[in-house]
């Protein structure tokens, strides 16, 4: 419906629209008539500062920062470009002497109102304005520039109007009705996100803190928007809308993102759907979860000073929340302790070795050494398992780089105790070590939903909870169910080369099935002796695959119903043979006769 609306609008626009030619800073530009001058100028590459302008909101013209000099019919005038609609033949200069001079005065005025705000200071600094000649009010504590973005987005987009302006003149300010927080404000945080200064944040305008949406990819180290690209290398690399938190999907309104999407690619009507796909084979590569270190209170995990290896990966990553700078409380940690085997090789819990932690801890220690050369690095390990190609060499190299490796017994108690600004790591047999940052090498554990997946696909889990292969040595990628194969950490903890190898094997096993013109079916299917069958249909009731049907046959001139097995559907379980009262339906290879003969032979031994 909305689509039709916009299409019609567009058509109307096209009918009415005619292009005009204007000159911006000596550059000749054509633009549709009636377009906002600021947008045309910005597209043409002009750098115009703004405070109250927002693409998704109606023009307001409050801050006057975007003013430009417009020459129309030989008359030169200053106009706020965010409210000026382009006309044919105008000449615009965005940085003439007059414009810059006036802009400086405006900046001085704004600076007089909000002398303490960082963003305003920066903006003023760009124009060489460091001081203001005007009277500073509010003891210099005011940060709101009265741009009205917060008020407007709340009214125009969120369709709420939960905040507004009160008073007049220099007493004008943004406030909740009666300065009281109410449930009417849904704490969407849109005012916070549009506020160019720190005013909304400082005033805590809603009286309650907006709940940030933790970024799943950054493991909660930063927040994300309701519309977001799941992670940098997502396929397809397009944004998705989280409809559980998107204002439009939860309460309606907003659609702010739509104004910014030049490709018109955002469709709010899209619904998630379940698509049925017919496949010939399935490769299960569902991955793993990480052990929750909170289950081991002795490590005192807080996600801040005591973090997991994966959190450290984000911290050290150049595209991570800190841009690759390892920082705790804004400071580089000078003493870093790594603890291995957290939640793995545990006789009470996960008995298996997690396999990847020894090497990624070595890598992480190496990265800290690279970024903070004077850091003291200690690794507590239980056994070093540098089993892969080049692993031992790398381990030796990291040791040469001055990383202290300290061995402890598996059962030795280890404790991390918060100690003011740092933490104390107590390990049996060693002196207590003070640390600014502790990185825990948490175990690879089966995904929480593995039991449900195993049941869905009719495959098994091994004792450790990972998915079970058909044979540990001879069929390491197959499952007990034909056509379903395993790859990666869903089967057991493994590193990248092993995962790639297993995935390649699974892919080739899949090709094995898909490339054949004919599919081999089960040999132990059921077959019916029609002379014995009396058509009771018990076999039909017990067959889980609907492979048995009754059909009419002519026996000695009588039309009778007998069972018939569809061998392509029959999987050969033999439930029908067990149910058959007359012994008419028999499973090949497991006939009553054959099994009774086995029992009979047992009688000999017995």
């Amino acid at each position: 419906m909305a689509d039709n609306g916009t299409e019609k609008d567009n058509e109307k626009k096209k009918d009415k629209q005619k292009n005009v030619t204007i000159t911006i800073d000596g550059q000749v530009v054509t633009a549709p008539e009636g377009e906002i001058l600021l947008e045309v100028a910005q597209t043409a590459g002009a750098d115009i500062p703004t405070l109250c302008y927002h693409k998704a909101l109606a023009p307001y013209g409050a801050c006057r920062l975007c003013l430009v000099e417009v020459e129309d019919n030989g008359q030169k005038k200053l106009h706020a470009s965010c409210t000026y609609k382009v006309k044919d033949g105008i000449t615009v200069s965005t940085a003439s002497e007059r414009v810059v001079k006036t802009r400086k005065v405006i900046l001085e005025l704004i600076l007089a109102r909000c002398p303490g705000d960082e963003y305003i200071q920066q903006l003023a600094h760009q124009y060489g304005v460091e001081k203001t000649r005007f009277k500073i009010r509010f003891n210099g504590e005011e940060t709101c520039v009265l741009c009205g973005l917060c008020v407007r987005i709340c009214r125009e987009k969120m369709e709420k109007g939960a905040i507004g302006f009160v008073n007049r003149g220099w007493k004008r300010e943004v406030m909740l009705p009666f300065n009281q927080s109410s449930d009417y404000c849904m704490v969407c945080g849109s005012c916070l996100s549009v506020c160019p200064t720190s005013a909304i944040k400082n005033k805590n305008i809603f009286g309650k803190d907006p709940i940030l949406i933790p970024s799943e990819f950054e493991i909660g180290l930063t927040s994300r928007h309701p519309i977001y690209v799941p992670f940098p290398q997502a396929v397809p690399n397009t944004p998705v809308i989280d409809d559980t938190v998107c204002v439009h999907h939860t309460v309606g309104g907003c659609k702010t993102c739509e104004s910014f999407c030049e490709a018109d690619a955002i469709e709010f009507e899209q619904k998630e759907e379940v698509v049925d796909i017919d496949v010939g084979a399935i490769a299960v590569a569902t991955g793993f979860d990480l052990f929750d270190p909170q289950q081991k209170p002795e490590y005192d995990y807080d996600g801040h000073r005591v973090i997991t290896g994966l959190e450290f990966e984000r911290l050290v990553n150049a595209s991570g929340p800190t841009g690759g700078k390892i920082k705790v409380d804004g400071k580089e940690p000078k003493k870093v302790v790594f603890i291995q085997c957290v939640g793995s090789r545990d006789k009470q819990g996960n008995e298996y070795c997690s396999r990847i932690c020894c090497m990624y801890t070595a890598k992480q220690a190496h990265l800290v050494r690279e970024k903070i050369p004077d850091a003291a690095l200690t690794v507590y390990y239980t056994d070093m398992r540098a089993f892969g190609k080049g692993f031992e060499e790398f381990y030796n190299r990291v040791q040469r780089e001055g990383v202290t490796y300290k061995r402890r017994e598996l059962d030795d108690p280890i404790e991390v105790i918060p100690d003011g600004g740092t933490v104390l790591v107590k390990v049996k047999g060693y002196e207590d070590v003070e640390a600014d940052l502790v990185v825990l090498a948490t175990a690879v554990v089966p995904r929480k939903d593995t039991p449900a997946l195993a049941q869905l696909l009719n495959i098994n889990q091994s004792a450790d909870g990972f998915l079970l292969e058909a044979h540990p040595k001879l069929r390491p990628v197959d499952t007990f169910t034909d056509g379903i194969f395993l790859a990666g950490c869903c089967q057991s903890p493994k590193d990248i080369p092993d995962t790639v190898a297993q995935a390649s094997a699974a892919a080739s096993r899949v090709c094995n099935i898909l490339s054949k013109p004919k599919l081999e079916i089960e040999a132990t299917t059921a077959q019916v002796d029609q002379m014995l069958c009396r058509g009771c249909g018990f076999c039909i009731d017990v067959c889980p695959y609907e492979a048995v049907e009754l059909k009419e046959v002519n026996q000695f001139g009588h039309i009778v119903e007998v069972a018939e097995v569809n061998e392509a559907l029959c999987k050969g379980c033999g439930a029908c043979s067990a149910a058959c009262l007359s012994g008419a339906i028999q499973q090949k290879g497991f006939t009553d006769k054959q099994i009774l003969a086995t029992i009979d032979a047992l009688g000999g031994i017995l």
Partner: protein
Amino acid sequence: MSQLVTQPEKKPQFEPKIAAFLCNWCSYAGADLAGTSRIKYPPNVLPIRVMCSGRVDPLFVMEALRKGADGVLIAGCHPGDCHYQSGNYKMRRRILLLTKMLEQFSIDPRRVRYEFVSASEGQKFASVVTEFVEEIKEIGPNPLK
């Protein structure tokens, strides 16, 4: 019935013989795992592989008892894990009904036992067998022998 083997009447320790119907996908694989993992369990169990525990006709159980088995174990996949969707449920229903009948034949119903052993439970298979053998030892030899 011809007795090919002399009865170990004077043997001080009664060694029961147990016929075990094991489903191919879970319990047989579990028994295999017990073997490959070198887990010890009593050698009294004689496995008969069937594709699914749902294939086990109560007649087979009776026949095994008639032939002189001291106990019969039927093991299949855990509920919900059946390779053939529901064979283990069918087995459970049939065996529960059969145990009711055994009492009428004055056979101790404890001689017939069903268990769920998955392919990863080698240890469980061993403990089930050990426990069952102990129980049968207490009950004594099969009176039908």
